[in-house]
C-alpha cells in the first residue's frame, strides 16, 4: 500500500462483467487441498458446518434408534445398562451440542453476509477457527465413545455421579475437556456474529431493517458470550476435582456442593436452549412470509420478543431444579418467571399465524415445514408452561413428559425449521432446486413419524415412566406406548433419510434455480446462485426490509429506493465496507484477510492442549500452548497490506 491508499473515496457504480472478473481473481480460494485447508470464505465454512452437523445428527439418530429398540417393550436385553447409559448420554450430547447449535451456526455463517449485503463475516479467520475447533471437539468426544469411554452421566452430567469416586474411568474427563474445547469454538463464533452485526451491514441497513434471522442469531450469540463461560468453568472445575484433588463439588466433607454444579450448568443450559431455537425461529420468520406472499406481521414485535425471550431466559435456570429442596420464595419467583417467559413466545406464534392468515399461502415444501413448525412450537411451548408450574413439575420432572417436551422443542423448533431452511436456501447454496415431490414425502414422513413417536411420550410420562431408565418392568402399562414411540421414531428416521436422499439426488439433477427462484425479498436473492466468492459485485444499498419487493409493496421516490445492484465499488484487494452500528452509514473501508493456514494450525495446537490435559501430559500441554501462542502472534502480526501499520514516514 502506498500512502495514497490509506484513504480513498470509493467509486459508486453498477455491476459489470469486467468488474466481476477482477473481483473473482481477488476473492477466489486457491484450488486443491491447500485452498481447502486455508479458505476463510464464509460460504464454504457455513456449508462445512451444516454438513458436519448433519453427520452428527445421523450419529445421534442412530444411537437413539438403537436404544428405542431396547425400550420398545419391557425387560429387553439388547443393551446392558452401561451401553444404554453411554448411548443415551451420547445421543443427548450429540444432538444438543454437536448438531443443534452448529447447524444454525452453519446457516447463519452462510447467510449472514448475504442477508446483510456484505462481502464476508467481520473476522473471516476467526470464522475458520471456530469451524475447525468444532470439528476437532466433535472428534474428541466421539473418540471417547469409540474407545468405549463415552460419557455416561447424561448430558447435564450431575455430580457426584460424575466425580472420580463414582465414575472412575476417563469417560467424564473426555466429556469435560471436549465440552470446554467446543465452548471455545462456540464463543469465538458468537463473537464473530456480534461484531459482524455491528460493523458489516450494507449501507442503509439500519437495525430496524435487518431480517429476523439476524436478530435470532445475534441474540443467541450475545447469550453465548455470557452463558458459555458458566458451563466451561463447571466442566473445568469438575476436571480439577477429578484430577488434581480440588473440592468444588466434593460432597464427602470437603466443603463443596453438588448444587453448585447444577447452578453453573443451568445458568448456561437454559440460555443455550434458547440459543439453539431463536435462530431457527428467525429462519421461519424470514422464510414463511415469502410463501405467504406478504411481509411478516409485526416485525418489530417479533424482533423485540426475540431479545426479550433471551433476557428472561437468563432468569429461569432454576426451573430445572424445582425438586432440589429450594425455599418456597425462590420456587415462587422462578415459577412465575418460567411461566411469563411464554409471553414473547406467544408474540411469535400469533405473528406467524397472522402472516399466514392475511397472506396467500403457496404450498411448497419449505412452507409445509415452516407452517407445521407453528403447531409443534405450540405443543413444546405448552408442555414447557406446564412444567413451569412448580407443583405440577414435581410430578412431571424427570419423566418421559419432559423427554417429550425437550424433543418438541428441539425437533419441533430446530429440526423442522432447519429442514424447511434446507429446501428454502438449497437453491442459493447450489444453484439447483430440491425435488418438490420427494419434498412432500419427506415432510409427511417426518411430520407423522415425529408426532407418532414423541406425542405418546407425554402420556408415558404422565403414567409415571421415569426418564433415563434402560428398561422397565412389565405390567406398568408402558409397553404399548413405548412400542408406538419406537415405531414413530423409525418413521421419523426414514423421513430424515429422504431429506438426505433428496439433497444428494438434486445436487446433480435438480432443476436449475436462477438467482431468485422463490421471488423472495431479501438481499441473498439479489446475487447469483451459488453466490460468487465476493458475494456482491457492488455493495448494495438498503432502504427497507424488503429490497427486492419494494416496487410491489409501496410506491416510493427514487431516492428512497434500495439498490441491490448498484453502490460502492471496492476492488483494491479484498475489501468490505464498515458501517456504524445503528444507522449503517459507511465509516471505513475494511481490508479483509486472505486465506490462511493460521486458523487450522491454531485449532490443532488447541486440540493438542486438551489431549495433553486428558493424558495429564504436561509437556504436551506446554508445547501446544507455546505453539498456539506463536500462531496467534503470527496471525495478528500487523500487515501493511491490510492497513494495520502506519503509512511510511516519507512518502
Amino acid at each position, binding site marked *: 500500500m502506498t500512502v495514497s491508499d490509506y484513504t480513498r473515496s470509493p467509486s459508486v457504480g453498477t455491476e459489470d462483467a469486467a468488474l466481476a472478473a477482477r473481483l473473482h481473481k481477488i476473492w477466489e480460494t486457491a484450488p486443491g487441498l491447500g485452498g481447502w485447508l486455508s479458505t476463510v470464505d464464509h460460504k464454504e465454512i457455513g456449508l462445512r458446518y451444516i454438513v458436519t452437523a448433519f453427520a452428527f445428527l445421523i450419529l445421534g439418530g442412530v444411537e437413539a434408534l438403537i436404544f428405542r429398540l431396547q425400550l420398545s417393550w419391557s425387560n429387553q436385553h439388547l443393551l446392558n445398562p452401561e451401553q444404554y447409559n453411554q448411548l443415551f448420554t451420547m445421543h443427548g450430547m450429540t444432538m444438543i451440542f454437536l448438531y443443534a447449535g452448529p447447524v444454525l451456526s452453519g446457516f447463519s455463517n452462510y447467510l449472514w453476509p448475504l442477508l446483510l449485503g456484505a462481502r464476508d463475516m467481520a473476522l473471516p479467520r476467526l470464522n475458520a477457527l471456530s469451524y475447525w475447533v468444532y470439528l476437532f471437539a466433535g472428534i474428541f468426544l466421539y473418540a471417547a465413545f469409540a474407545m468405549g469411554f463415552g460419557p455416561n452421566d447424561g448430558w447435564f452430567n450431575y455430580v457426584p455421579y460424575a466425580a472420580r469416586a463414582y465414575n472412575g474411568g476417563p469417560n467424564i474427563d473426555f466429556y469435560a475437556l471436549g465440552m470446554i474445547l467446543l465452548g471455545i469454538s462456540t464463543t469465538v463464533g458468537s463473537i*464473530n456474529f456480534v461484531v459482524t452485526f455491528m460493523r458489516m451491514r450494507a449501507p442503509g441497513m439500519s437495525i430496524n431493517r435487518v431480517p429476523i434471522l439476524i436478530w435470532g442469531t445475534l441474540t443467541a450469540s450475545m447469550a453465548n458470550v455470557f452463558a458459555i463461560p458458566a458451563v466451561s468453568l463447571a466442566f473445568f472445575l469438575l476436571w480439577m476435582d477429578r484430577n488434581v484433588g480440588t473440592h468444588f463439588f466434593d460432597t464427602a466433607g470437603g466443603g463443596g456442593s453438588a448444587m453448585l454444579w447444577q447452578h453453573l450448568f443451568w445458568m448456561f443450559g437454559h440460555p443455550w436452549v434458547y440459543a439453539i431455537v431463536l435462530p431457527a425461529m428467525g429462519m421461519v420468520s424470514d422464510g414463511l412470509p415469502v410463501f405467504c406472499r406478504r411481509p411478516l406481521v409485526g416485525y418489530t414485535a417479533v424482533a423485540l420478543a426475540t431479545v426479550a425471550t433471551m433476557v428472561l431466559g437468563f432468569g429461569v435456570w432454576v426451573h430445572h431444579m424445582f425438586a432440589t429442596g429450594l425455599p418456597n420464595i425462590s420456587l415462587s419467583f422462578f415459577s412465575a418467571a418460567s411461566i411469563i417467559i411464554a409471553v414473547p413466545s406467544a408474540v411469535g406464534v400469533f405473528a406467524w399465524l397472522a402472516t399466514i392468515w392475511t397472506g396467500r399461502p403457496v404450498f411448497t415444501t419449505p412452507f409445509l415445514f415452516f407452517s407445521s413448525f407453528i403447531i409443534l412450537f405450540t405443543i413444546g411451548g405448552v408442555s414447557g408452561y406446564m412444567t413451569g408450574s412448580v407443583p405440577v413439575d414435581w410430578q412431571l420432572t424427570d419423566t418421559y413428559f419432559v423427554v417429550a417436551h425437550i424433543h418438541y422443542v428441539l425437533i419441533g423448533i430446530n429440526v423442522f425449521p432447519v429442514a424447511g431452511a434446507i429446501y428454502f436456501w438449497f437453491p442459493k447454496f447450489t444453484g439447483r432446486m430440491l425435488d418438490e415431490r420427494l419434498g412432500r414425502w419427506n415432510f409427511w414422513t417426518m411430520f407423522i413419524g415425529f408426532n407418532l413417536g414423541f406425542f405418546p411420550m407425554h402420556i408415558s410420562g404422565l403414567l409415571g415412566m421415569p426418564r433415563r431408565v434402560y428398561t422397565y418392568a412389565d405390567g406398568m402399562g408402558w409397553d404399548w406406548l413405548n412400542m408406538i414411540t419406537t415405531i414413530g421414531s423409525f418413521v421419523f428416521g426414514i423421513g430424515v433419510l429422504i431429506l438426505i436422499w433428496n439433497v444428494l439426488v438434486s445436487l446433480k439433477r435438480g432443476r436449475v434455480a436462477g438467482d431468485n427462484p422463490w421471488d423472495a425479498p431479501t438481499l441473498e436473492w439479489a446475487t447469483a446462485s451459488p453466490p460468487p466468492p465476493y458475494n456482491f459485485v457492488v455493495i448494495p444499498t438498503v432502504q427497507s426490509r424488503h429490497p427486492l419487493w419494494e416496487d410491489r409493496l409501496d410506491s416510493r421516490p427514487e431516492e428512497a429506493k434500495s439498490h441491490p445492484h448498484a453502490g*460502492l465499488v471496492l476492488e483494491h484487494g479484498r475489501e468490505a465496507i464498515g458501517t456504524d452500528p445503528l444507522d449503517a452509514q459507511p465509516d471505513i473501508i475494511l481490508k479483509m484477510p486472505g486465506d490462511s493456514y493460521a486458523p487450522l494450525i491454531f485449532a490443532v495446537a488447541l486440540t493438542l492442549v486438551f489431549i495433553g490435559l486428558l493424558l495429564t501430559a504436561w509437556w504436551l500441554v506446554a508445547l501446544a500452548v507455546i505453539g498456539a501462542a506463536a500462531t496467534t502472534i503470527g496471525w495478528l502480526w500487523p500487515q501493511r497490506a491490510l492497513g494495520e501499520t502506519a503509512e511510511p514516514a516519507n512518502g
Partner: protein
Amino acid sequence: MADRIALEGTLPVGAIDTRASGWWAMIFIVCTEAALFGYLLFSYYYLAVQPHAAGTFPQGGIPSLTLALPNTFILLLSSAAVGWAQFNIQHDDNRRLIWGLAAAVVLGIVFLVVQAFEWAEKPFTLSSTAYSSLYFVITGFHMMHVVVGVGVLTTVLAWSAMGYFNRVRYAPIHIGALYWHFVDAVWLAVFFTFYITPLLGLHA
C-alpha cells in the same frame, strides 16, 4: 434512522481506532471473560454461604493485606502506564508509547512475582478445602490472565519499537490495552472478594 445514505466522501482504509473489527472483537472477548470471573466469584460466594462452610471461609483467618494491597496498587499503576502510552501514541509520540508499555510490562511481572510470594505464604494447598481450591483457582485464573496480558503488551511493545504505529494507526495498542485494563479491573473484584469481604464480616 437516517434516510440518506452517504456514499460519497473520503473514507479511511484498513483498521483504525474503534472502527477496527479487532477492537469490537476484544470488547466481546472482555465480556465473555468478565462473565467467566463472574461465575468464578459466584462459586466462591455460593460455597461460602453453605452451612458446612462455617469456620473455613476464609481458611487460616482473615487474609493478610501486607502483600496484596501494595500489589493491587502495582497493577493499577501498570494500567495507568498503559493509559499514558495510549495517550502518547495518539499524539504521535512513539518514544513515550514504548516507555509506557515497557513500564506496564515490568509492573505486570512484579505483580506476578509478588503473587508467587503470596501463594507461598498460604498455610494450605490447592487440595486442602473448598476455600483453598477456590483461592488458588480464582487467583490462578487471574494470574494466567496477567501472563497473557504481559505477553500481549510485550508483543505490541515490540511492534511499537518496530515503528508500526502512528497517531492514526494504533489499533493493536488500543486492543491490547483494552484487555490489560480488563485484567486489572477484574483483579479489583477478586481482591475485594478474598481480602475485603472477610474484613466486612460477610463470612462465617
